[in-house]
């Protein structure tokens, strides 16, 4: 038996012809590596810099200014303004800032007296990767800024780092709530789009439409089981988070349920929209991947959101998963309530309204 080169070539040519005709697959093959390359190359930064920082100024003077100057030049911190003493908790919980520098009253005086006063850095450590580098650099910055006040080897001031929400710096704390968003994105959007496309692909949609069944009845009946599946996934993951990884659940159950319900709706309507665009289940799956990939990379799930350049953060803000992950992390790890996560909830509502409208206008009531 001899392999015939001409037959191999015949198969090869046929494969190329088919590849070129299947536009979506072709786009996947070219687009996904390109997108990944660009995102990993330019957007993703595992050593994030310029994280938002606020200052609670209990005292002011040359030493304080030197410390703030030192923090800015280190590039880890981006000093964005002042904060009043009572507002620090809120600012951290609502993701307004990552760091708060707390300068205690009489800091300059105590420094001059050689009392080695404390200077405090409040850190949102819920994402240990994002906050780690800045927190790590802080003692060195304080030491060099106050070197002239010290005597010999002893430090002039005592830097105190207060890691909030995740004192042990465990990555599981951050990953597990984020995973909730990723899993829901993956399964909800993909399962609905595939289940709906399946009817059209197999021709059973024609059977359904030939009965007096209303399109809305078909939709409701098809989507309801997946809402249930989504709810089961959430419950399972919450239990695993609690008992396997010891992830706390500090916030309000009401805010959590609303966030989850909204997010499931967003993804179901997204799946519904894909099903109106895709002709085959394969295409529906590929479309889901186009959304899934940026959802993993740009949502702050894997890589710190604050570490990305402006354009990548802008893109990230367009992704529903970003807002959901932000809300769920705040609720679970920081004890946020409804009012705290509202900035993440309204974008989800708008996304849902837009996607659902698009999908419903595209849905065919006849076979036209």
């Amino acid at each position: 038996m001899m392999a015939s080169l001409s037959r191999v070539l015949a198969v090869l040519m046929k494969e190329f012809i088919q590849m070129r005709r299947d536009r979506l697959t072709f786009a996947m093959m070219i687009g996904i590596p390109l997108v990944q390359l660009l995102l990993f190359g330019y957007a993703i930064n595992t050593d994030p810099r310029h994280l938002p920082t606020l200052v609670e100024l209990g005292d002011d003077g040359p030493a304080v200014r030197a410390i703030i100057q030192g923090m800015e030049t280190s590039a880890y911190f981006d000093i964005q303004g002042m904060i009043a003493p009572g507002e620090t908790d809120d600012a951290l919980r609502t993701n307004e800032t990552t760091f708060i520098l707390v300068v205690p009253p009489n800091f300059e005086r105590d420094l001059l007296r050689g009392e080695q006063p404390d200077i405090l850095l409040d850190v949102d450590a819920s994402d240990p990767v994002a906050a780690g580098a800045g927190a790590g650099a802080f003692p060195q910055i304080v030491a060099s800024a106050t070197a002239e006040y010290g005597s010999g080897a002893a430090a002039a001031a005592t830097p105190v780092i207060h890691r909030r929400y995740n004192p042990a710096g465990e990555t599981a704390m951050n990953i597990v709530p984020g995973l909730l968003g990723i899993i829901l994105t993956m399964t909800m959007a993909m399962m609905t789009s595939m289940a709906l496309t399946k009817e059209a692909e197999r021709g059973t949609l024609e059977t359904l439409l030939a009965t007096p069944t209303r399109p809305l009845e078909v939709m409701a009946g098809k989507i309801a089981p997946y809402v249930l599946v989504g709810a089961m996934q959430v419950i399972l993951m919450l239990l695993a988070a609690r008992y396997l990884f010891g992830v706390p659940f500090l916030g309000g159950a009401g805010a959590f349920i609303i966030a989850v319900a909204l997010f499931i709706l967003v993804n179901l309507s997204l799946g519904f929209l894909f099903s109106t665009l895709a002709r085959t289940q394969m295409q529906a799956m590929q479309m889901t991947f186009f959304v899934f990939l940026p959802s993993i990379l740009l949502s702050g799930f894997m890589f710190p959101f604050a570490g990305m350049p402006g354009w990548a953060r802008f893109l990230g803000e367009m992704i529903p998963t970003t807002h959901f992950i932000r809300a769920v992390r705040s609720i679970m790890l920081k004890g946020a309530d409804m009012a705290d996560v509202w900035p993440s909830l309204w974008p989800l509502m708008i996304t849902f309204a837009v996607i659902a409208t698009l999908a419903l206008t595209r849905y065919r009531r006849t076979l036209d």
Partner: protein
Amino acid sequence: MTGIAIEVEGLTKRFGSKTVVDDFSMAVPKGAIYGFLGPNGSGKTTTIRMMCGLLKPDSGTGQALGYDILKQPREIKSRVGYMTQKFSLYGDLTVRENLDFMARLHALPDTRSVVDAALEEYNLTPRARQMADTLSGGWKQRLALAAASLHSPGLLLLDEPTAGVDPKARRDFWDRIRKLSRAGVTVLVSTHYMDEAVQCDFIAYIAYGRKLIDAPSDEIAARVGLHTWRIEGKGLQPVQDALEKADGVDQIARFGSAMHVSGKDADKLERAVRQFEGREGLTVSEAKTGLEEAFIYLMTGAEDNFS
């Protein structure tokens, strides 16, 4: 409206710039078996879909069982049984589950006994628990017919129901169609098989989206006005070659050791075929024009007009 099950007037449907059905009109008497014939892509499926409200015609009007096909698709859908060309029930449901599902979609009272009766009627009871995907072609069609007639529709629209089914299964299927027809159900059925066409009470032949003829099936040949002679014997090829150029011969169909020579002009045709009469091994006789010859003739004429 008594006596008429479907009546459509000037139905037209375009997909993009292509006119798939063009000014189509027809009337189907109640209780009749109406054959819908025509080449592939002639617009049969599109016409059937418009009749049961699955597609909206671009223009034209019509009624099915007294309901407007444009304004009352839901009333029509609950009284019409539609069987798609491709098997379109759920392959991963069992026979019973499929029927049960259809019964519920039609909101039939007492689903269980309706499904039981249908299983019995179509001899599907032994296969009730079998997955629909694992049925052979003939059984799939039988299940599809059972599903389409589950809600006792007054009108059945069957789109090439026997395509790709073996001869025995096809005969069984037609026995059932006739039985439904005797019970008063109107049947509109599209097919490519001539042996099925002759079983229809009426036939409409369409090509390129237009109806070319519409008549009781036994009058089709006469309406087309074609005359046919049969030449039988050995060594027919040179005879065919000669006749193809002869005046008065419009078409020739070969059947093994015989051929049918047809033409519109009876005298010219007779003169053309008579020249072979008496040749050794050949018999020449006048024959009845069959449906197939009539349709091929219509089709060839249509091609000249449209392409």
